[in-house]
């Protein structure tokens, strides 16, 4: 299941200052869309607006033609800090079952088999009875992912989910995420400040500028297939091009 997201001239103010204005984006069904930008440029604010946590100052967001006004079951979010997003008093299985139980989806057996399937997919099988505090950082993020996938949301919004992980675990998680996405084909809106991660994951990469009024400057499209090899000419050229673009953005931001 997947949906498209259309963002039209969106502006968001925080108190009296403008975070960004006139941002327009068009995210296609089943697309892996990455939003890249320096820290503090407003990426998370945009994600929160799509999730329905924030009200825009002006402009509109549509999911499958329907305007976003509040959080909805069609848009699940995976947060950067799994520690605070998971429910520490619930086991891995109970965490995964939370949304299904809340919405009364399926019989107990159906729920169990669904959870089993996605815990296996996220390499968490065998850990069902553990509590979040007993899991490593990577496993906690896998649990957030499993908990989201069992709900089969058309859109998954991911807020730098691997930023707190060590380099090796991050690489492994990126590969796993791509594998899962290729199978499930949910629309993914993924934000990161890590350029290499953006090129490894994204079908399209939008670069957000930094400054008092951030805008989306360029959108890059990647043609080659997954899993991506960053040493190919296409990836290399793209990395260089985006990097120059980003450095310029950081400079502008610092001078402002």
């Amino acid at each position, binding site marked *: 299941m997947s949906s498209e997201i259309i963002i039209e001239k969106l502006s968001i103010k925080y108190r009296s200052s403008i975070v960004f204005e006139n941002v327009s984006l068009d995210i296609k069904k089943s697309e892996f869309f990455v939003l890249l930008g320096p820290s503090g440029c407003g990426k998370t604010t945009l994600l929160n607006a799509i*999730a329905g*946590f924030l009200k825009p100052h002006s402009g509109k967001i549509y999911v499958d033609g329907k305007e976003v006004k509040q*959080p*909805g*079951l069609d*848009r*699940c*979010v995976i*947060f950067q*800090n799994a520690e*605070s*997003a*998971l*429910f*520490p*008093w*619930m086991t891995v299985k109970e965490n995964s079952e*939370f*949304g299904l139980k*809340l*919405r009364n989806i399926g019989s107990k057996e159906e729920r169990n088999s669904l959870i089993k399937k996605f815990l296996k997919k996220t390499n968490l099988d065998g850990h069902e009875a553990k*509590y979040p505090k007993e899991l490593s950082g990577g496993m906690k993020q896998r649990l*957030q992912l499993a*908990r989201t996938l069992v*709900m089969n*949301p058309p859109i998954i919004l991911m807020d730098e989910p691997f930023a707190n992980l060590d380099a090796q675990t991050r690489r492994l998680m990126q590969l796993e995420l791509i594998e899962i996405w290729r199978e499930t084909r949910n629309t993914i809106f993924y934000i990161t400040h890590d350029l290499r991660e953006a090129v490894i994951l994204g079908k399209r990469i939008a670069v957000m500028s930094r400054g008092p009024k951030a805008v989306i400057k360029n959108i890059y499209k990647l043609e080659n297939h997954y899993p991506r090899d960053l040493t190919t000419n296409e990836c290399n050229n793209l990395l260089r091009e985006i990097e120059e673009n980003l450095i310029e953005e950081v400079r502008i931001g610092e001078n402002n």
Partner: protein
Amino acid sequence: MNKAVIIIRRFFIPIIFFFIGWQIIGFLTPDIFWPSLGTFLTTTYKTLASGEIYRHLGHTMARVYGGWAIGGLAGAFFGVVIGESVVASDILKPYLTLGRFIPAIAWIGVFIIWFGSGVPSILALVIYSSTFLSILPTLNGMIYAGSLTERIRSAQVMGANRWDIFLKIKIPTALPQIWTGIRTALAVSFLQIVAAEMLVGSTGLGYVIWTSRIYFLITKMFVAIFMLGFVGYLSDVVLQNIGIKFLKKYGIK
């Protein structure tokens, strides 16, 4: 560490120190102020064997547990309500802040006029103090639970409405602090009961301590004092273990 060593260190050594310390002070002070170890042990034995003290103990405990159960639960309830509702918080918080600076015992005169000089006044005091004691930790727990934006939002995107978030996310998150409030309220109930029984009681350990003073029954006073400490300690251990057994997954240690 070896289990026997732990038992020796935690139980036997403190008891031996207690007896040695007791005897040293007993040597240095007249019997009327501090009985010798022999007098203390025989009087303790006689007091415990006579059975009279247990009636007082029973009355004190019934008042402590009764008042604490009502007050602790009421405090937890008000703490949750105030923590959840901004309006209730705005209206009630000034009273809470003010109330914190009024010692519970200051109300005993008022309670005597309202409820008479007896058990109802003692109960009112215990209920009052344990309510106050458990409101604040509960309130802090609820405020903390409300500050965990990501936890609340992650429940929201899975379909949780306000009631679900309150019941299934905020209360479990605040539970360790609610429990701390309830436990502290029990300890404070023990403090209040003695003062209340001294002033308005006709039974109870507080009453025993207060009336023994008139006849210089220093040993009997010690027995009642230690009995309170012992039962209080035991109650806290039992409560702590109940918490660990049933609420461990919520982070109660």
